[in-house]
């Protein structure tokens, strides 16, 4: 069921499946720029089959938990990790839930901007990626640059245009010992934006 869905996603968006993982085996954090509702499904569809089976996207709780259908799609189909965006407390902290998934051997997909970009440019990163990297410095952080998604299904439109999307998996990065939050987030953002950055 899931692999059929992934094949349909690839057919519709024109995204190619990765021939091999961009990192050594084991769980990873895929972080991507966010432009459309389809983004997580595109990254997910581009992963090799085995990796896809153990990868869980992070999804905004306020949106995906709002109706029964959305909850079913997010939790049953994609096994999403629901993330609160408002009223974040220590008990429901997003990094906790993501870390728990990583510790269970899953990979996660997350969008550090926290919301979809209005204009196709990558916005500032929120701190979630930093907290997660700090807790699990050994886990590779794989930048995934999504191209054309803002043209396929831009924020504010319900009508998709069938352009060819691309998911570029860049070289994985790690947090360095003692690296401060703004420095790390800027480096992560640069790694996502620039194909030659480390």
């Amino acid at each position, binding site marked *: 069921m899931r692999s059929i869905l992934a094949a349909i996603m690839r057919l519709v968006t*024109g995204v190619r499946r990765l021939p091999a993982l961009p990192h050594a085996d084991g769980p990873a954090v895929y972080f991507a720029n966010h432009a459309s509702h389809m983004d997580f499904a595109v990254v997910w569809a581009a992963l090799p089959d085995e990796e896809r089976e153990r990868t869980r996207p992070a999804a905004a709780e306020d949106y995906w938990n709002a109706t029964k259908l959305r909850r079913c799609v997010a939790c049953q189909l994609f096994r999403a990790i629901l993330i609160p965006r408002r009223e974040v407390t220590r008990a429901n902290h997003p990094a906790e839930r993501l870390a728990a998934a990583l510790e269970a051997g899953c990979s996660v997909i997350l969008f550090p901007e926290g919301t979809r970009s209005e*204009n*196709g440019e990558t916005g500032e990163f929120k701190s979630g990626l930093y907290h997660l990297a700090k807790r699990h410095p050994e886990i590779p952080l794989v930048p995934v640059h999504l191209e*054309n998604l*803002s*043209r396929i299904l*831009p924020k504010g*439109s319900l*009508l*998709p*245009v*069938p*352009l*060819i999307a691309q998911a570029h998996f860049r070289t994985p990065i790690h947090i360095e010992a003692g690296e401060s939050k703004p420095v790390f987030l800027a480096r992560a953002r640069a790694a996502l934006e620039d194909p030659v950055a480390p």
Partner: protein
Amino acid sequence: MDPETKRLLALTGGILVLASIAGYLLSRRATTDSSRATIANLNARIRSWWVMAAIFSATILLGPTFTTVLFAALSFLAMREFITLNRTDRADHEVLFWAFFVILPLHYFLVGIGWYGMFTIFIPVYAFVFIPFRRVLTGETHNFLASTSRIQWALLICVYAVSHMPMILRLPLRGYEGENAKLLFFFVLTVQLSDVLQYVWGKTCGKHPVAPQVSPHKTWEGTVGGILSTVLVSTLLWWATPFQPWQAALMALLVCLAGFFGGLVLSAIKRDLGAKDWGNTIAGHGGFLDRIDSLCFAAPLFFHITGFCFGTGMDPRPPAWLLEWIGR
């Protein structure tokens, strides 16, 4: 299937078998890395040719409806490549939705029902007018002319021009009733053979580039050799067409020249957009638009000149059931 169609299919199969054998022999003789890469690309092209020839032949045999659907799909995929490489922006989004999901299907619906009068003007008149109307509603004036022109060109090249190929099946020709599938086959075979032979001549004895800034691999030797040998082969196929041999030669020359310029024009657009290929869907060839670039400009010319010289006149009126339906 009539014997002439069988002969055309057998000929195509024969060319592909010969090409595959040649490709295999060349791959055994290649010694340097660069020649190995060239031969590998050649063999990828030949394998793709088998697939494309099989799909095209099968749909033609299945009849006009299937042929129309095949070309509609081809138009969709070509326009997708065209628009993807064009940096369209947010204000174009709704117009593009109309282009892909309303204008394209409606246009091929007209091909399907064979309403020639509306087929010829639907995109040049109605879509031409509609696109700026819809775009102006967004209130965005930046790049207005460039954006609307890009979308109009996309529709003209990828949809309007391409759709003249299935329309060949509906062209009434003197003494050729019910045989138009062979004419479509003749046209596609001529243009594609010309592409292949220009490539072969260019690779073997090409020296002087025709338009180095537009397409560095197109040479005078390749172009002239490819076109002349294609005209020769196509003339020998006159029995499959409504033409006399000399007429077949002239028509073949015409579509080869139009195909050559069409390929150059689409290369120029590609370079303008900063890309080498339109896509990477067809192994060895690039995108769909890389494969059909020479057909795009040749198809409307071939359609109209054949219709003008050999036709009994297309009926521009809507089909009877449509007139009845609107109560006229």
